């Protein structure tokens, strides 16, 4: 039984998007420990600052508290989780059993990801799984929800897991021309909402969105644009030069440089504060520009290991109070 037959999942995120609100989601990284208090503290920082919060799944292939376990703690704190699930660590049996548990624990949003390769993380000698890819995971969840069957075809005889199904999109990765088609593939597989990679190059993203609109994809799935604050010029440079699928224009790197230029190195804290301030400013400007692009249904604010940043950005971008209802 679903919570509300009019909705696919009945999650707050789904209801807000369906009602046409411009939504804001945040992100929470679970700890590399069994300390549930860390989740509670981060959840308190994010509560009231966004509509729902992504809980990462062993992000960058580093072992952390599980996204579903952390999501259960978030619900206790009154924060709606968007549980991330990667294809790297589980086969189709483990995925389906985890989906049943996540639903039973009250989770209603799920983001399907391929997962960072284990060579980037702290267990590079691990065996990866990739039994399914992210598209096949979306397809499996749709079958469980809409056809009430497991992937093998066996019926789910009583309660089926009803998730609002999300997928990621990277508008800047190669081959660039194929990216809108890959999004189309995810939407056709059944993705209800999309969260994009961090966007710093609005012009290139607008070009991507023009093609997405031509294909009518913005009318079939809600697209949330990814935004995150740059914290230091070094981070901006690293993202520009080293992270595949990431585009940071030189002008933004220059702005980060300029923000700390007049502050001597010894005044470390003051310089960090100036950089963060500039990073926040840039993020707020990006949100204002992204909102103007037709087909953008909200923003996904990723403030990695700086959860306070989400609230500051949301406030300055005029997105508070949250959650909307």
């Amino acid at each position, binding site marked *: 039984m679903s919570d509300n037959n009019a909705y696919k999942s009945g999650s707050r995120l789904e209801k807000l998007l369906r009602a046409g609100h411009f939504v804001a989601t945040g992100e929470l990284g679970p700890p590399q420990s069994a300390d549930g208090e860390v989740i509670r503290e981060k959840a308190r920082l994010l509560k009231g600052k966004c509509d729902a919060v992504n809980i990462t799944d062993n992000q960058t292939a580093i072992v952390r508290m599980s996204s579903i376990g952390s999501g259960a703690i978030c619900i206790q704190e009154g924060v709606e989780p968007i549980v991330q699930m990667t294809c790297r660590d589980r086969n189709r049996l483990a995925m389906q059993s985890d989906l049943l548990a996540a639903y039973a624990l009250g989770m209603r949003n799920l983001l399907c990801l391929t997962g960072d390769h284990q*060579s980037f993380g702290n267990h590079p000698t691990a065996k990866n799984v990739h039994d399914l890819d*992210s*598209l096949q995971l979306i397809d499996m969840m749709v079958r469980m929800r809409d056809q009430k069957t497991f992937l093998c075809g066996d019926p789910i005889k009583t309660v089926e897991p009803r998730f609002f199904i999300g997928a990621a999109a*990277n508008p800047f*990765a190669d081959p660039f021309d194929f990216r809108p088609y890959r999004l189309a593939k995810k939407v056709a597989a059944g993705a209800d909402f999309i969260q994009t990679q961090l966007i710093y190059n609005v012009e290139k993203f607008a070009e991507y969105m023009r093609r997405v609109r031509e294909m009518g994809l913005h009318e079939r799935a809600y697209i949330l644009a990814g935004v995150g604050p740059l914290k230091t010029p070094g981070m901006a440079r690293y993202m520009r030069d080293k992270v595949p699928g990431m585009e940071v224009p030189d002008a933004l790197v220059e702005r980060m440089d300029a923000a700390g230029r007049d502050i001597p190195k010894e005044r470390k804290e003051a310089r960090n504060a100036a950089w963060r301030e500039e990073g926040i400013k840039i993020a707020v400007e990006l949100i204002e520009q992204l909102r103007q692009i037709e087909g953008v249904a909200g923003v996904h604010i990723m403030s990695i290991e700086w959860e306070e940043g989400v609230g500051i950005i949301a406030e300055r971008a005029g997105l508070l109070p949250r959650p909307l209802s």
Partner: protein
Amino acid sequence: MIVGEQKPLQEIKELIGDAEKVLVAGCGTCVAVCFAGGEREAEILTSALRLAFRGDGKAKEVEEVTVQRQCEWEYIDPLAEQVAASDVVVSLACGIGVQTLVERFPEAWIVPGLNTTFLGMPQEQGIWVERCQACGNCILGVTAGICPIARCSKQLLNGPCGGSQDGRCEVNPDMECAWQLIYDRLSKMGRLDLMVTFQPAKDWSASRDGGPRKIVRQDLLMLPEEGY
């Protein structure tokens, strides 16, 4: 072909351990073509082991022999005497050759001198690349003849992931992104329709996941009544 790489000399010495009579067995097929375990490599390893043991002050006999293929009974049967006379056989064949020797000569102690690395090909002089994972269910017909199971770091069937940049894989800039190659070739061949076709969850039971595999061809079996 099967591509292998010789183990470090130290590791081979450790595998030989206290054995005094050592037989180095080369294989003249795949591993000879990739310069890892053929006749020449067997000779070189034998010399290296003799030198090393002499340096260690150990009196060991090291002999070598190379057969055309270690993975077929008929080629290894003639080794019976030499194997029986040895305390240990260092096989420079792939893992298949090692196990064929073990099955034929169950009383002998056989150790591998190679790491069997992958199924692949020599791309150019000195460079070998992986091309097949023997998944048992070939999909090259829908991926423009480029295998994402063997060549995509995440074995995606609906790629590319977000880590593809400038034709390279995020895992290592030396690696080509298989899905960029697939996209380019489908594009050139006017078959981009295949790129947007959803590939459902793969049946991995035909792969190693279904347990060790075996092919039985009824049409080729030597039935008793046909044996004479």
